[in-house]
């Protein structure tokens, strides 16, 4: 098995002693922070255009995040969880999948949905508290962001079982954070995936904090990837600031899952440059030194250096994508703002296929 991945759980008889042990894990890395290839045998097979597309998406996502934070301050967006710093895990993991694969996101994972096909204005509608943000277009295989941390792990498990029962070679990916890996739902989902050998990928974006609670207080586990062992699935740790490593790990996990080899838990070590949410002050729990240290690992800078060295990217490209992203955000926020407001009668009608008489009556209060 590759460097950076844990072995499958030991079979009875292979064990050395009566005490269960596991080794430390080294995160899979392909690019150094200077953008040099350090692990050529794991370099994913991607064309120049594909490499440029990945960079495009990361820069776009960063710009979108910057704009969203501003729009939030202006009161033009509602609930929004910043993503800067996590572009490699978000963009890379989605890029490694097929359109026919399924995504079950947590509340921070809007970029994966948009890159998987959800129109951007719907992401904004969702943020603005409009029900139709969640009307997912036909052919886009996603659920909307989950507010209940961990619930999506179980949905993904069920979707994976569906693929298995229908004998379809698709995979499902579910995202959560280091905090999310403490929820009971997480363990129950992983265990099911292990016992039914399901085509699922559980991607934990370990950004070091759950709101204010640091990783060290979240778990005593050696790593989150180690949590795969007890569930009997593969566990992998990856440098989450290295987009090529993320792509390589997710592609490998997806290939294994498609071939009937079961589920993988991937822990991506990453960092969110902004606070947890729009209403939160990170200076209360993070240090400037720590933030500066992670800034050096910025996934966009790192991948940019790699592409620049190959003559595939320049500062002008970055500037151009930023402008494009700003224009797209402006257009889509306008569309979201111009979308007709939802109504209480409309809400009532969305509860059941056929609105029951008692609910029909309740509309009278709102006409």
């Amino acid at each position, binding site marked *: 098995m590759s460097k950076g991945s844990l072995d499958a759980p030991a079979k009875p008889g292979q064990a050395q002693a009566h005490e269960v042990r596991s080794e430390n894990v080294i995160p899979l890395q392909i690019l150094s922070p200077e953008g040099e290839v350090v692990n050529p045998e794991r370099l994913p097979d991607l064309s120049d255009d594909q490499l440029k597309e990945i960079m495009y998406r990361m820069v776009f996502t960063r710009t979108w995040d910057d704009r969203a934070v501003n729009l939030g301050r202006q009161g033009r967006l509602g609930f929004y969880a910043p993503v800067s710093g996590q572009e490699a895990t978000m963009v890379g993991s989605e890029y490694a999948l097929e359109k026919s694969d399924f995504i079950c996101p947590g509340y921070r994972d809007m970029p994966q949905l948009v890159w998987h096909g959800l129109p951007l204005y719907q992401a904004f509608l969702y943020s603005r508290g409009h029900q139709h943000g969640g009307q997912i277009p036909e052919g886009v295989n996603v659920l909307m962001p989950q507010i209940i941390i961990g619930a999506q792990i179980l949905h993904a498990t069920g979707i994976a079982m569906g693929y298995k029962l229908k004998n379809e070679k698709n995979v499902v990916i579910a995202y959560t954070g280091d905090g999310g890996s403490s*929820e009971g739902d997480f363990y129950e989902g992983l265990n099911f995936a292990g016992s039914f050998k399901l085509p699922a990928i559980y991607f934990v974006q370990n950004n070091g904090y759950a709101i204010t609670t640091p990783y060290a207080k979240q778990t005593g586990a050696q790593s989150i990837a180690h949590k795969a062992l007890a569930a009997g699935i593969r566990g992998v740790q990856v440098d989450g600031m290295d987009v090529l490593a993320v792509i390589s790990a997710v592609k490998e996990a997806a290939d294994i899952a498609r071939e009937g080899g079961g589920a993988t838990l991937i822990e991506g070590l990453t960092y969110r440059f902004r606070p947890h949410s729009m209403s939160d002050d990170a200076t*209360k729990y993070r240090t400037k030194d720590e933030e500066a240290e992670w800034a050096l690992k910025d996934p966009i800078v790192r991948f940019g250096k790699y592409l620049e060295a190959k003559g595939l990217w320049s500062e002008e490209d970055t500037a151009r994508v930023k402008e494009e992203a700003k224009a797209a955000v402006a257009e889509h926020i306008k569309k979201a703002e111009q979308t007709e407001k939802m109504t209480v009668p409309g809400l009532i009608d969305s509860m059941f296929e056929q609105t029951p008489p008692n609910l029909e009556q309740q509309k009278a209060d709102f006409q």
Partner: protein
Amino acid sequence: MAQMTMIEAIKDAMRVELKRDPNVVIFGEDVGHVGGVFRATEGLQAEFGENRVFDTPLAESAIGGLAVGLSVQGFRPIAEIQFVGFIFEALDQMFVQAARLRYRSGGRYNAPIVFRTPFGGGVKAAELHTDALEGLAMQTPGIKTIVPSNPYDAKGLLISAIRENDPVFFMEHLNLYRAFRDEVPEGEYTVPIGKAKVVREGKDVTIIAYGLMVHTALKAAAELEKNGVQAEVIDLRTLMPLDIETIVESIKKTNRAIVVQEAQKSAGAAAEIIAQINENAILHLEAPVLRCAPPDTVYPFAQIEDVWLPNPARIVKTVNQVLQF
């Protein structure tokens, strides 16, 4: 006397009790170092140490179950569930295990736990952060439910709840946390659990409410007064046990009543209150008791919550219906 917001009063209640009783411990997601997402426990870890006030991993069922286990060990846990919708993750531990500990052990153990949770609409929060879930708690045997409407009551009721030997579900309205300041005594005092309060006297109709809706009801009462209608407003403060005596006394005077709640209309607190009014005061009524409540949908996405929640105009409309019956 000090002027405090509700959140300050809540913190003060916990400080007083941490100081008084070494068995009181506080825990939950982010409650330690930073003092919680609403800063309800800010400074308490610094003052009392990490053994008394601590962060937990992100796992509500474990938070609930930890509280039960600590109770068995003689502690008095105050467990914070960060937002109300996340109690579902802890329902077994809160509403089954904690609420049944006394019964299942034949009285050998008790569960002197306070489950604190913010709830309440009108703040455009994300999904499942605001739902009014008091009806679930009221339907659960073995747990008491408290919903304060102001800083003074919040502190006095929370101190009572912490000293209570049975589990309490203590719901704090988000929209009241920093809405206004109140005279709040320093140090210890209690407000009794299970006692409602008449917050406005009137003779024509009784408006029964709790939490933020008390304030909405008072606004409606002021509107009604302009048309010569004297509404009496009752702040229930505790939903289980329900102070039916105070309600009946009021209805004897007014002969008409409505109940206002933030939770969806059917099968909730208002339905129970009306059932108890029927059992205890049917002969004093001159009109059916009506509910002013949101429709039976999920708590809507932020865009229309203002229309969905009861407002003074809808309360006035409901009052007029019982007056004109």
